[in-house]
Structures are given as C-alpha cells and as structure tokens.
C-alpha cells in the first residue's frame, strides 16, 4: 500500500513536470521571448554596461547583482547552520583522520600534496582574478581554493591547518563576500544612483570604466576568499566531531 502511494505520487509529479516541459518554448528558437529582448541586450551592450569582457560575469555580477548577493548570503547562512549544529573546531579536542588511523600518511601522498597545493592555489587565484575576461570567477576560484585547503587538512591534519589560518583571521574573512558586495553597492549611492548600480553618469568615461573594474574585482575577490574559507570551515567543523 505504501509503495503504491509513493509510486502514485511520483507518477503524478512525472506527468506534471512533463506537461511543464511540453509547454516550454522550443530550445534555441530565435522567436522565443527571451531571445527577442533579454539576450540581444546582454550581447550588444553587456560589455559596455557590465564592465566585463566575459559576458557571463557581467550578467551575474551586474544585471543580476541582487540575485548573486542573495546566493552569497545563502552560502553564509549554510555555514551559520552548520556551525549552529556542529560548533566550531577546537584546538584542544580536535583529532584528525590521520591521527586516529592506524596507518600514517605515506611519504608519496604527503610529497605529492605538498608539491600540488601551490599550483592548485595559483590556479584558484588565476580563476578569481581573471573572472572578467575568461570563464571562472569568485565562486569557481573560491571552490578550488577551498578544495585545496580541504586536501591539505586531509593529509596534514586539522591542527596544522588551524595553525596556518587562525580563527581570528577566519571569522572576518567568512563574511568577506557579503561585505564586498555591500561596499560595491553603496558606491552607487554616493554618486546619487541606485543601490548596486555600476553606471555612474557623473564621472568621465575612463573613470567609469576604471571604477567598474575596481568594483568587479572587489566583488570577485570577496566572493572567492569567502567561498574558500567557508568550505574550509564547514569541513573543519564536520571533521572535528568525535566518532559516535
């Protein structure tokens, strides 16, 4: 009976979703409403208005800035939720997988990780800083940065990781994304424009261009650093809990 009910619910969902898919405009049709108004505007004026030669970055940080600001807040809230349930890592009680495992890390693994980490971090920095000219940006670079920290922690343990990045440094950096977004948003208010606008008609063309690039860079670096540190913090607070 229970299985039948589950199956029935799934079947109803399936029919509803399929009918929604049938109603969708055909993929790639130039007559779609989005292709007639939104896409041409992005493609023709995106570089000029968005300030980034990579149009995706321009759309994410400029046209849909509010949306991205919300996403950044979601990541921060996720960290807050994890910390509320699991609590932050503690130097005194923290153990690591390596410390508790009967076999220590092998020489090959430690050497390879030591050699690879600088290159992974370099790639992360490149991805963050080149977000406005090539694919990538704050989220992507930050995720790579966070993954590099996680790998370091997996091999060398939580204690060395926490000695490298102290809690007093970590806590402000976790909110760097929202902070940089807010700062970049308030720049518009000082010029008599709306919140989070990138267009300042009061300035000359060159000054506008420079300011736009500076704002993009500020937001990208903020998002990148915060995403990386938040991933590291979530991992560390998960790793800390003793075996139940």
């Amino acid at each position, binding site marked *: 009976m229970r299985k039948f009910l589950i199956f029935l619910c799934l079947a109803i969902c399936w029919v509803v979703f399929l009918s929604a898919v049938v109603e969708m405009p055909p993929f790639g049709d130039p007559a779609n409403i989005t292709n007639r108004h939104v896409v041409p505007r992005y493609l023709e004026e995106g570089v000029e208005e968005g300030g980034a030669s990579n149009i995706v970055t321009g759309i994410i940080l400029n046209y849909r800035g509010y949306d991205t600001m919300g996403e950044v807040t979601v990541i921060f809230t996720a960290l807050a939720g994890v910390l509320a349930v699991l609590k932050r890592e503690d130097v005194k009680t923290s153990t690591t997988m390596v410390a508790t495992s009967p076999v220590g890390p092998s020489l090959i693994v430690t050497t390879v990780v030591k050699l690879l980490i600088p290159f992974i971090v370099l790639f992360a920095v490149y991805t963050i800083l080149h977000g406005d000219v090539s*694919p990538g940006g704050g989220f*992507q670079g930050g995720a790579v940065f966070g*993954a590099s920290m*996680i790998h370091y922690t997996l091999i060398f343990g939580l204690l060395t990781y926490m000695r490298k990045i102290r809690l007093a440094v970590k806590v402000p950096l976790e909110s760097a994304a929202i902070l940089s977004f807010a700062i970049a948003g308030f720049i518009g208010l000082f010029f008599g424009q709306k919140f989070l606008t990138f267009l300042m008609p009061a300035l000359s063309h060159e000054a506008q261009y420079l300011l736009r690039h500076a704002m993009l860079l500020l937001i990208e670096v903020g998002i990148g650093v915060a995403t990386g540190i938040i*991933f590291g913090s979530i*991992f560390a607070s998960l790793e800390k809990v003793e075996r139940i």
Partner: protein
Amino acid sequence: MLWRLDIILLLFLVATALGVYVTKDLMAASIIFSAYSLTMAIVWQQLSAPDLALTEAAVGAGVTTVLFLITISKTVRRED
C-alpha cells in the same frame, strides 16, 4: 561525432544516477556520485557553459564527495 559523445555521456549520467540509487554501500554510492558530477561537468562543457563546468568539477566532484566521506566515517557505512 560530438553528438555521439553527448549520447554516451548522457547514458553514463543515467547509469551513474541509477547506480547511486541501487548501491547500499554508502562509500561506493558517494564515489559513484562523484563520477556523476564529473560527467555532468563534461556535459556542461559540451553545452558551452565552462563556468558551470568549473564549479561542478570543484564542488560536485571534489568538496561534496569529501564531505560525504567524512560524514560516513563519523556515522555508519551501510544503508538500512
């Protein structure tokens, strides 16, 4: 040629998704899930979305898998 590659990738996606559902060993399931994410990253690249491909490869295949493995190592490995 590329169209055929897409078909293979999509079939592999379905196979890995079913594999995650069927597998009772959670460790194996999370590793199959990371294979799913990696394939998904290639599919994003095929759909000309390199931004998403980067995110999927780093978050889906890297960070999420590690978080799953950590959670499994703190709890039980088998699904009841």
